[in-house]
């Protein structure tokens, strides 16, 4: 097994120079996937035959000099809440164990145009609700750096496969950190674009106003290439925008450190990474100052009202009537009740109940209504901050990856692992997590950068320069964990 996967640009050059064939690359990542799968359980399905067939088509295109671009022949894994025509899309739920999608998500259609190859569907917390993949109905994914640790979530499978070399890149979805937090736990790059720049059509909704598809990759440039190929206005998504991307005014950037994410509750390890990067940024002539966004402390509470409220309606369609699981019963309502009781896992049920409660007559104003008001204040706070700063920096997570079971007993602890990532979802901002170092127990640590809406490309540029400066080039040694022996 060769875990060391070159960047997409390098791979493209190897293909163009006929030093490597896309099908050879596909076989290599497939071998990695097969080798690691019994340890990691990162996939729900592997697409060997069709993947190989597709990559052979790429071989021919390169042979004829008709390649479709940088993604031609690049093996990409897809989070299993994104619909791929003709394949199962389970959302890691029993509810959809037999559900085969009759259509492609917009991003899938766009990737198919690029000539890239899908390696398979990756594991996630059921319906993307969770921070560890422990909520998957098909069993958790393990962290490639140490299988005793969680890979993060909800896109834990998508982060693990990139980290393990089982795909060159993957797609994840990010509602409160579900791309960035697992990317951070697995030592890879995770990018959540500006809300509306990447179509949500075909992404099975968790919380529609927060959900965003994005790439998980080995390098920032890889993330840029994937983003470039999946962004753009989609007439099938009414919340999709026609983005006008912005550039910072000066080359010398002004970057703000969010004070509220550098205090108690955030581990020293995580804070140190931010300080390390701050030093490097200052050394290269940028200005880095502390700034306060006081409402950041409210973000978690706001998120845990808005996201469950939206999910309570979004998940109503899973009723056994038209598709998916159907539990036998004597009447329609009994069938729906039984199906939902059996089909949904505990975390999903908890959030549906929470959201239903927050929207109920008599409680709406107190909970959901108030959360919306605070959300708009958070948005205007960010707008003010971006009057002063080009970008904001913080740790991606309050601590590196934790062990299985460590936080399952205490949901609040679990929810806190999204403390730093949630604000960007509430405000629709682009945000990226890049690995910068290792903790004492050899688990990856990351920093997060946030930009104003539609600053995606310049945010990626800054992330890339930090990537160069920190030159994080560690790879996980994938072995069975202590619990496995």
């Amino acid at each position, binding site marked *: 097994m060769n875990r060391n996967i070159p960047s997409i640009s390098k791979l493209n050059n190897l293909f163009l120079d006929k030093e490597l064939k896309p099908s050879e690359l596909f076989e290599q990542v497939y071998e990695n996937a097969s080798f690691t799968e019994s340890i990691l359980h990162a996939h729900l399905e592997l697409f060997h035959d069709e993947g190989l067939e597709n990559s052979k088509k790429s071989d021919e295109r390169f042979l004829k000099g008709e390649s479709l671009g940088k993604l031609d022949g690049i093996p990409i894994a897809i989070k299993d*809440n*994104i*619909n791929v025509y003709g394949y199962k*899309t389970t*959302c890691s739920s029993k509810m*959809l164990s037999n*559900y085969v*999608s*009759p*259509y492609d*998500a917009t991003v899938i259609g766009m990737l198919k145009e690029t000539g890239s190859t899908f390696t398979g569907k990756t594991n996630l917390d059921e319906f993307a609700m969770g921070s560890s993949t422990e909520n998957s109905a098909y069993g958790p994914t393990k962290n490639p750096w140490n299988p005793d640790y969680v890979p993060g979530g909800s896109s834990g499978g998508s982060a693990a496969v990139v980290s393990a070399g089982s795909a060159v890149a993957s797609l994840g979805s990010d509602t409160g950190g579900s791309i960035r937090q697992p990317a951070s736990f697995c030592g890879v790059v995770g990018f959540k674009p500006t809300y509306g720049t990447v179509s*949500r*059509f*075909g*992404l*099975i*909704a968790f*919380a*529609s*106003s927060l959900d965003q598809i994005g790439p998980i990759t080995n390098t920032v440039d890889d993330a840029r290439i994937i983003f470039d190929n999946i962004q753009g206005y989609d*007439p*099938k*998504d*009414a*919340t999709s925008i026609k983005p006008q991307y912005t550039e910072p005014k000066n080359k010398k950037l002004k970057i703000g450190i969010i004070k509220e994410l550098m205090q108690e509750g955030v581990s020293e390890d995580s804070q140190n990474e931010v300080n390390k990067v701050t030093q490097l940024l200052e050394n290269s002539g940028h200005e880095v100052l502390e700034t306060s966004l006081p409402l950041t402390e409210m973000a978690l509470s706001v998120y845990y009202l808005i996201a469950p*409220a*939206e999910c*309570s*309606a979004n998940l*109503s*369609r*899973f*009723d056994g*009537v*038209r*598709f998916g699981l159907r539990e036998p019963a004597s*009447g*329609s*309502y009994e069938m*729906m009740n039984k199906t939902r009781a059996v089909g949904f896992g505990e975390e999903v049920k908890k959030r549906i109940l929470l959201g*239903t409660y927050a*929207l*109920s*007559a008599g409680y*709406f104003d107190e909970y*959901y209504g108030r959360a919306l008001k605070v959300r708009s204040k958070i948005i205007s706070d960010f707008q003010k901050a971006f009057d002063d700063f080009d970008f904001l920096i913080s740790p991606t997570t309050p601590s590196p990856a934790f062990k299985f079971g460590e936080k399952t007993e205490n949901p609040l602890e679990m929810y806190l692992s999204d403390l730093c990532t949630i604000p960007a979802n509430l405000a629709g901002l682009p945000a990226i997590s890049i690995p910068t170092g290792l903790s004492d127990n050899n688990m990856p640590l990351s920093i997060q950068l946030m930009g104003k809406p539609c600053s995606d490309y310049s945010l990626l540029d800054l992330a890339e320069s930090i990537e160069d400066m920190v030159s994080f080039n560690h790879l996980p040694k994938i072995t069975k964990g202590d619990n496995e022996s």
Partner: protein
Amino acid sequence: MSLKPTIGMETHVELDTESKMFCSCKVVETDEPNISLCPTCLGLPGALPVPNKKAIEYIVMLSLGANCSITKEGMFHRKNYFYPDLPKNYQISQFDFPVGVEGSLEIVIEDNLHTVAIERVHMEEDTGKSIHLGSGRIDSATSTLLDFNRSGVPLVEVVTKPIISSAKMAVAYIEELRQLVIDLGISKGKLEKGNLRFDANISVAEEGSDELGVKVEIKNMNSLKSLEKAIDYEILRQTKMVQDKESIIQETRHWDENKQVTLSMRTKEGSADYRYFSDPDLPNMVINDEFIEISQNQIKETPEKKRKTLLDTGLSLSDSNYLDKGQRWLYELYLSTVKETGDCKSTFNFLTGELQGQMRKAEISELPQWVNSEKLASLINLFENNEISFTSAKDILAKLLIEDIDPKSFASDNNLIQSSDNDEIKALVTLVINENQDIVERLENPEDKLVGFLVGQVMKSSESKVNPGSVKEVLLKELFG
């Protein structure tokens, strides 16, 4: 104790758009189930709604036609409830920011004009259709069949204030609303197809009281006859309950056509909690001045405008309203014909009585193309000027409906023109008097019924070719001087 009923109407209007409200599936009218579906209107995971601009234009037209103010920044909300034919188990609807608010419709009852205040006009999507086998009801069905062709068809809900006071008024209101959507061209308006479906909220309270009684909702009717009977029945039922000092419970009932009664469907404890919240899949519905103007310009006709045009020709309010609610061609034919006859009443009577009657009898729904206002006006003028008898007019019309004839030349060619020549009439009258001496002797005064008999005898001997009015005149002169 005198009780007065108060009624509020909620009407769903199915818009006649090409495609559905939030996807590009065609709106189809067919009994073949589940042929116009896509991931969006079937509520498949991951599918998203995109609003139909035409439907928004239509609802703005309807709001303007119902004299509403337009909400410039509207919102779509999710109305949450579980039902097998509601694919997402929430309906995309509108809650506190409907498209149209505070409007009114003029309605006509007999010869009086009333105003019905409109509270709101909002946009939503239709559900699929359920067929509950075994019992017709979801809770006792042996199985349920689902057809999602209707799922996602654009619906507009028009809600009145609770100010309707009788079944007749409710019927007149629905007739006016139906005509409005037809004249605007935004719905087929066919009641039998369920293009309009209405719920009536009914309560009774003491005359003079400011407070309304407990309301009962009769759901989902689509015939005016049922609506009228159901409201009348419900008013009686509630009145009797109040008089018997029974308390009325807030509930939903339905009209049982077979038993001719309203029956309880379910009891509402307080109001149902639909947990409305703004749909995060849909941005705010911005309706700017330009869009309103575009919609306004699409409005060519409304029943109110048509009624004014008809009143201007001299017709009574009830006759105007009759033509207003009738078929479009009849309305247009009346207007062009009355221009030539100058006589609104006889034109109205001839077209709505004779013409429609003969067409019904001959089972033709469309006028032959040669039948135009010019020919009809000439026919109306012929008998109005006593040049032909009414019987001849009827015969000529019957001929005209099957053959392209000119009424006037047909009348003279076929010897139908009545003579008003006094000498000829005098000769005939003299003859009849001589032949009927026994009757003439029994005559006491000019009002005697036997005068009519003698006029008839003259007409008979002339083979109806003389004008009966002139005959009577000459006869009376001869007999009484």
